[in-house]
Each structure stands twice: as structure tokens, then as C-alpha cells.
């Protein structure tokens, strides 16, 4: 199969991976309507034609539902004219369709100009990436991930119910809802510090705390990869200074053991790992703070346990400090 550019090839491979074999690419394709029996298109020369480049993805075979995708690899953001053109294509295909339902989607690796949203809404076209209130730039990988998400969701949706997406702007809104949350994801994962296991998904401090908050500490280890804390419910956290991995994944608690550096109290006096464990095991996480070079966990609102790259610290937070030395 020939591709006009790299974006088109990637879109095709993503569509084929998501939907199976019912995906084709057509270049300079003459638009052929299903029925030429309508008075306005009947002529001695046959129905009117228009040439387009299109990625055709069949979402459902019975009743037939097809997505027509226009992949725009432009130096600048796509303009309203691109949306209008695709709107006309999809509208024509639907108007002269025997039974197939066509939806249209425009993907532009460089995004869209402001006026495109209004045309996408009125033509009921999906646009990827979305236009948001603020100027956001999504890189091409993110745009392609949006495309894959839309395809997979759309195929499931087509099997359940699709008629309600016919009327504008229902399909535009459906696609928008699926891709709009990439904004929060992009912002939340910008620092690349937190990772949810076992998927390896980029995460955030907030998600980490909502995963570990309230759980009891069951075990502590020090590995060559960092300090590890096993919690109730099969959750574990590994602190590696530059990154924090957490989640329900036994791989987190694996590594080459090493002798940890453990300290206690405000004065950071040396202590053993056994002493730290004797205090913290069985206690619940009540707070957390990321201090950059260590992660500090509050336990039962009485102790602070610090996870460092090379070990742990433990401090009693009860006052007066002098009377609550460990």
C-alpha cells in the first residue's frame, strides 16, 4: 500500500491495529455515491464526482457504519476550509447512501485554527486534536494516541448504539469528550516522575496518594533500584529519587537487596532497618509529601517515614519531641 506521508502511514497502521482488516487508504479517490437515482444527481454523464484522499474504516458491517478520515499533514494548523470540504464529502455520502451511515473525522498533526470548531460542530465532524480554550500544542504521538482512542471507542459504541450520534453536534461532542481529557493528562504528567504499575502509565502525585492513602505498611526493603514499601491490598511503592513507581505489581518488590542507610529522629541518628520496621509495619498512611530527593509518608498521624534512594528515615511527630524520641 502506498502512503502520501508518514502521518498517513501511522494513521493507517493504528486504524488497522484497532479495527482489524476493514481499513483502506484511497488517494485521489473519486467519490462514488451509493445511489444515483436521486433527481438532483441523475444526468447523462452520471453523478458528479470529487477526488479526495481518505482513510476508510468500517466500524460495523450490519448495519454498515463507516468512518471517513481525512489525515492532514500540514506545516500550519488546519483551517475551516479543510473542515468544510470534509463536511461536504460526508454529507454527500450520507445523502445519497442506500443504507450505510457515514461519520467524518479530520485529523491534523499540527492542530486546527479557531474557526474550525464551529464548522466541526455544524457538520457533525470529529476533530483530532481538540480545540480547547487555551492554546495547547499536542505532539504528534499524542494526536495519534487520541486517534486510536477514538477508533476503539467508536467501534464499541457502534455495536451498542449509534443512531443518536447522527444529529449534529452529537458525533463532534462524542469525539471531543474522548480526546479532551488528554489536556489534563498532558499537564499532570509533564514532570514524568510518577508511574502507575503494571501498565507503566505516566501518573501524578494525586493519583499516587489516592492509591496508597489509608493502606497499612506491611514490609520495607532497600534494593539497588531504591526504597520499596509494600502495603495492604497488594499495593507497593518504589522510590528512586528521580521517579516513583506505585501500583498493584509484584515486580515493584523485586530487586537486588542492599544494606539501607536508616536514620531516626530530628537529629537523624543512625538506626537499623529492623527498628524502622518495628515501628511502621501495621500502621496506616495518613499523609504524603514529595520533597524531591525523598518521599515522606505520614503514618497514623504519629510518625513520618521517609523513603530515600538509599534507605529510610523515621521521625515521631508527637510533641514534645524530646519525650517522643525513637
Amino acid at each position, binding site marked *: 500500500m502506498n502512503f502520501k506521508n508518514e502521518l498517513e502511514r501511522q494513521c493507517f497502521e493504528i486504524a488497522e491495529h484497532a479495527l482489524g482488516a476493514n481499513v483502506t487508504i484511497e488517494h485521489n479517490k473519486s467519490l462514488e455515491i451509493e445511489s444515483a437515482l436521486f433527481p438532483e444527481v441523475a444526468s447523462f454523464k452520471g453523478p458528479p464526482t470529487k477526488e479526495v484522499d481518505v482513510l476508510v474504516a468500517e466500524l460495523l458491517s450490519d448495519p454498515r457504519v463507516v468512518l471517513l478520515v481525512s489525515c492532514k499533514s500540514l506545516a500550519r494548523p488546519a483551517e475551516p476550509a479543510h473542515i468544510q470540504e470534509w463536511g461536504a464529502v460526508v454529507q454527500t455520502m450520507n445523502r445519497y447512501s442506500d443504507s450505510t451511515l457515514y461519520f467524518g473525522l479530520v485529523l491534523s498533526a499540527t492542530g486546527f485554527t479557531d474557526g474550525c470548531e464551529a464548522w466541526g460542530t455544524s457538520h457533525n465532524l470529529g476533530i483530532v486534536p481538540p480545540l*480547547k*480554550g*487555551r492554546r495547547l500544542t499536542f505532539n504528534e504521538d499524542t494526536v495519534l494516541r487520541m486517534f486510536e*482512542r477514538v477508533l*476503539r*471507542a467508536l467501534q*464499541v*459504541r457502534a*455495536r*451498542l*448504539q449509534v443512531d*443518536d450520534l447522527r444529529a449534529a453536534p452529537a458525533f463532534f461532542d*462524542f469525539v471531543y*469528550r*474522548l480526546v*479532551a*481529557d*488528554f*489536556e*489534563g*493528562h498532558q*499537564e*499532570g*504528567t509533564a514532570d514524568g516522575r510518577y508511574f*502507575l504499575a503494571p*501498565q507503566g*502509565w*505516566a*501518573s*501524578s502525585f494525586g*493519583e499516587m496518594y489516592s492509591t496508597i492513602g489509608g493502606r497499612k505498611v506491611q514490609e520495607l526493603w532497600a534494593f539497588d533500584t531504591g526504597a520499596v514499601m509494600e502495603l495492604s491490598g497488594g499495593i507497593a511503592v518504589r522510590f528512586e529519587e528521580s521517579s516513583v513507581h506505585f501500583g498493584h505489581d509484584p515486580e515493584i518488590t523485586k530487586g537486588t537487596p542492599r544494606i539501607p542507610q536508616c536514620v531516626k529522629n530530628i537529629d537523624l541518628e543512625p538506626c537499623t532497618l529492623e527498628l524502622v520496621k518495628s515501628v511502621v509495619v501495621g500502621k496506616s498512611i495518613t499523609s504524603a509529601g514529595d520533597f524531591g530527593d525523598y518521599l515522606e509518608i505520614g503514618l497514623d498521624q504519629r510518625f513520618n517515614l521517609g523513603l530515600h534512594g538509599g534507605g529510610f528515615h523515621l521521625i515521631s511527630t508527637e510533641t514534645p519531641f524530646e519525650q517522643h524520641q525513637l
Partner: protein
Amino acid sequence: MLVTRDGEPIQIELIVDRLRQQRERVLADDEIGLVIYVGDLTVYSLEPTESGEFLARHVTEISRPRFATRVLRKQIGATVLSVTVDAVFVVKDAGALRKVRAERLEPGMVLASGDKVYR
């Protein structure tokens, strides 16, 4: 806020946990979040209007993003609303109407409904 046809509040955590098991309903469950189809169920969302009343809209999908969109508090007329930054309002502008997203809604603007934006 999600409610039933009778206006009874729906515990979103419970319904999401239950429906998540029905894989044929799951439109997306990935690093971005969870989207579940509920169009065949009688689930409605109560959305505040500029006049302070609530409008019940039939919900077709429940979305649980892992990274939520920012929420703003806006006072419009006598009502204080929580809206996402990209919620769209229609405002009067020199005799014409134009759309403005919540994050660009400025104090002093007047909505098409006649309500004034205070903050």
C-alpha cells in the same frame, strides 16, 4: 451530579464499579481514564443554568478521567457555579452574541440570558 429518572442521586463510584465489569459497555479504559456507555440506562446529569435552576440531561457516557479538567467558580447573577474551564457561555457583545469559554468570562460581561457576571 447524576440522578435517576425520579431525581434520586446516583452514587457514581458504585455505578462505575458495577458497570466497569460489563466490558461490552467500556468505550475506553486506559492511561487517560475510563469511559462507560450508559445511554440505555436512565441516568441524568443535573446541570446548573444561568438562572440558578438545574437542567436534567440524559447521559450517554460516564467519563472518569485520571487527570481531571480544571474547575472554576463563577458568580453569574445571584448564583455561584462550578464549571470546567472549557464550559461555553453566550454573552452579549455590542449588540451581538458571541461564545466565551468559562476561563475567559470576565466580571462585567452580560450573558444572553441577561445575567451579569460578577466574578
